[in-house]
């Protein structure tokens, strides 16, 4: 399969799993692979219908599904997070990011799950 075929399959499977888990119409409206000039790379999955409450209640399951999805795209699941629409509980995107050394510092300095009000960390593997 080509990379885009892999992505199409992964997007659809994750969307189905989330709908089945939550029992609500979650939409994954776009999945994008990215590579940044700083050296970070990963995947952004834009969502509609997913809320922070859903995540907090089903975090363990959602983390498992997301890990499986990004691993299937050969992305290291060492940093998984969601972005919230500022000031709301609406989740704008679910993300996996393989951090460059500079951006790693932005996240490693804090200790909690919300280093910024618009970011909620699902998984962050600290480096040696």
């Amino acid at each position: 399969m080509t990379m885009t075929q892999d992505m199409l399959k992964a997007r659809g499977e994750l969307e189905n799993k989330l709908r089945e888990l939550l029992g609500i119409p979650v939409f994954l409206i776009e999945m994008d692979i990215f590579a940044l000039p700083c050296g970070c790379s990963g995947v952004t999955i834009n969502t509609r219908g997913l809320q922070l409450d859903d995540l907090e209640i089903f975090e363990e399951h959602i983390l498992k599904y997301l890990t499986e999805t990004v691993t299937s795209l050969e992305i290291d699941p060492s940093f998984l997070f969601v972005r919230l629409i500022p000031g709301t509980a609406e989740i704008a995107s679910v993300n996996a990011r393989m951090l460059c050394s500079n951006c790693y510092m932005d996240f490693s300095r804090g200790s909690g799950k919300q280093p910024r009000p618009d970011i909620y960390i699902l998984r962050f593997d600290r480096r040696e």
Partner: protein
Amino acid sequence: MVSMKLYVPHVGHLEGLEDLLSGSDDIYAVYMAGSPDYIGTGRTNLSAPKLEEIAIQTEYAHDRGVKMEIVLNSSCMGGQQLTPEGYRTIDWYFDKLNGIGIDSITVADPFFVEMLAKDYDMDVVVSVLSFVDSPQKAEFYEQLGATTIVIDPAVNRQFDKLEAIRDAVSCDLKLLVNEACLYQCPFRYAHFNFFSHANGPGPKPNVLDDYYYFKCLSLRINDPQQLIKSPWIRPEDLKEYRHITDTFKIGGRTQFINWILDAVDAYANESYEGNLMDLLDSVKDLKDNFFIPNSELSGAIEQWKRCDKVCHKCGYCKRLAEKVIQIYSQDEDGRCTIPLGSSGDRT
């Protein structure tokens, strides 16, 4: 090191404040936006703290000897503040903030300056979005009741203006050191008005893209001298401003705590080794594209002190840009920098 008062951005939630204040002893005050339901703010904002959350965070800051400032610097309220309903709502919100023990409120609308000065104990700070760039305008705001004026960064390198403002008013002055907006930006008013509605009580515009921000970045990419011309103040140059004020504000409410603490460290120590782009707020999306070695800008302030701002005749910033700015690129060994000219023909 001479003592200074550093006003530091806070992203808006308790966890962020805990990380921020545990990371530095050089913070005099933190500032954050309030709830967009009442006045809003003229910048992008990542949080909407409720009054209870503001109260908890204010107490936390005060326990650590740090002042709390709330930024309500919407540059456009669409006239709602002058309606009876609007006035009552805002007055109620000011009253609650006053009760919480907020130290100062930053506002852009002269109406709010007068309202706060007349009715409340909180210090009244005139925002950069009031664009105070002359002694005359500073006098107007002082007469309205301003405790502090944050001077329009457009005159950060016009020392005759800064000195005239200093002479004209007795209120405190504050300088925003790293906003790094375009010098004489044509989008400034429109962009802040857009933000004010996007981050205010509503109705919120459902825009496709932030035209002004895209143009802002595009102008710098096509003409990198704009990166030099924008009126940031290097950490090393703070001493040149000591006769104006000892109070400096770091911009960056949408940055990560690590970034904010690095900026605090640089400005508190008046020294920074590295890419100046890492300290600048409004151009954060270009920080991995351009490399401006801060140390190579040493001495430029001497030119700017006597600059008459006729760029097309002077050309100093253009020459400086060509000399010091490099572009990040990729080679077989990884990331590298190349001279400005080698990435294509620029105007």
